């Protein structure tokens, strides 16, 4: 612990006694090489204390540990989880290029204008080939850099397919515990079936843009079913009227209305021009009131936590199954029978 880190600050907030993890820092001589950001679990109480004092550097460090599911991350989340559950978690999803980042940038400004603090988790896909990722959502949100009431964190999906990363929920809890009033989750650009955001956010905005498909798209199962609010972005473009009619028709066909008597509104925005943003923010707040008044908030909290537990249990079981595939000689024998086109023996073995 160096503890000498009180430094004169310009431009960014004081971070106090941050310890460099590199040479000479807290991790010097430890197994983690210079630059490795894994924190020793023993350092977590100090990290959490600085987190609770509102130090953004401590928040940022904690987010890394939670994202990487390190022992320190689990320890920190254990300490911070009781402080979460207060933020309004708003999911923003839609196809690539629909204007999600631009809209999120507008919503940040709108909510800051209303006195709310805002955190953003922006998720972009990892390469399935290399595991690398380009996280580019931040480009459209750089205007907030000097605002202490805003915190933006990019994360890659790291192989998760539902539109978010596996660690997104933990990241949201951490930002929630830090005290942000609103936590926005921007999903990867989604197609039809990436609905995980609805199990992570209390309010889900689905962006649609004119010109992507006909009215049959609007009655397909999938992502349209999870929207609490439908947003037609780029509403100044040709085709916005037809899209609105198609979506309205889909809604009046009924059958998929979210429980609790909420009527899904259709809003029109032009995020690039900054049009319709106030109305959208009003509608999101209307949904929050609906959740709180009708008991739906508690129901969704319960569903989210159940989903988290189920995910953890499934993950552990899958890890055990994976070990079986890798370590069990009987499995190799079974595979050899299948390769030899000996179906009967293979099936007999696999069912015993």
């Amino acid at each position, binding site marked *: 612990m160096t503890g000498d*880190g009180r*430094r*004169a*600050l*310009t*431009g*960014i907030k004081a*971070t*106090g006694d*941050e310890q*460099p*993890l*590199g040479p000479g*820092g807290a991790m010097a001589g430890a197994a*983690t*090489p*210079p*630059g*490795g*950001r*894994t924190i020793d679990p023993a350092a977590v109480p100090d990290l959490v204390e600085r987190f609770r004092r509102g130090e*953004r*550097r401590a928040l*940022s*460090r904690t*987010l*890394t540990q939670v994202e*990487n*599911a*390190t022992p320190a991350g689990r320890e920190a989340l254990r300490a911070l989880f009781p402080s979460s559950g207060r933020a309004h978690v708003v999911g923003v999803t839609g196809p690539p290029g629909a204007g999600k980042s631009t809209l999120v940038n507008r919503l940040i400004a709108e909510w800051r204008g209303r006195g709310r603090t805002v955190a953003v988790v922006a998720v972009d896909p*990892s*390469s399935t080939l*290399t*595991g*690398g*990722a*380009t*996280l*580019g959502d*931040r*480009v459209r949100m*750089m205007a907030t*850099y*000097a605002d202490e009431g805003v*915190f*933006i*964190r*990019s994360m*890659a999906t*790291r*192989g998760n397919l539902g539109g978010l990363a596996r660690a997104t929920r933990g990241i949201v809890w951490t930002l929630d515990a830090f005290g942000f009033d609103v936590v926005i989750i921007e999903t990867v650009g989604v197609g039809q079936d990436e609905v995980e955001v609805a199990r992570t956010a209390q309010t889900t905005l689905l962006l649609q843009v004119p010109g992507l498909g006909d009215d049959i798209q609007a009655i397909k199962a999938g992502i349209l079913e999870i929207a609490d609010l439908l947003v037609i972005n780029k509403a100044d473009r040709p085709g916005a009227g037809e899209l609105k009619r198609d979506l309205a028709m889909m809604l009046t066909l009924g059958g998929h209305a979210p429980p609790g008597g909420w009527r899904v509104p259709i809003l029109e925005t032009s995020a690039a021009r900054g049009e319709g943003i106030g109305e959208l923010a009003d509608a999101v707040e209307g949904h929050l009131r609906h959740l709180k008044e009708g008991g739906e908030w508690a129901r969704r909290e319960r569903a989210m936590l159940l989903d988290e537990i189920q995910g953890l249990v499934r993950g552990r079981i899958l890890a055990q199954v994976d070990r079986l595939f890798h370590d069990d000689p009987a499995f190799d024998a079974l595979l050899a029978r299948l390769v030899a086109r000996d179906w009967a023996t293979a099936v007999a073995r696999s069912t015993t």
Partner: protein
Amino acid sequence: MADQQRIRVLVAKPGLDGHDRGAKVIVRALRDAGMEVIYTGIRQTPEMIASAALQEDVDVIGLSILSGAHMAVFPKIMELLRAGGMDDVVVLAGGIFPDEDVPKIKAMGIRGVFGPGTPLSEIVEFIRANVGRPEAA
């Protein structure tokens, strides 16, 4: 679990020139090398870069600059990083620099300076060696 840690890199273009083709080539190369690369776009002030680096908790910052303003902009960025407790971040500079400036840039604490024509693999290897953590395959 091996892939739960990735080298995170912020690629930023300080200064007023709008030529970000080179920066995008770097973003792509680092991504293809398995890193998570946060791109912040053109015309970034030192304050924007330091603020983004803090929020993203990156291992590496790559600064791409062609405008010739590096001797004005780099010291400010390094000062802000130090002030923000980010002394441990590996900072690289790419662009066109007069030979006599290179030692001065390195003296600021910028560990790697890469001029035009640097093979992308050299930059990837430099990052891996300096972050000191082998890429999770």
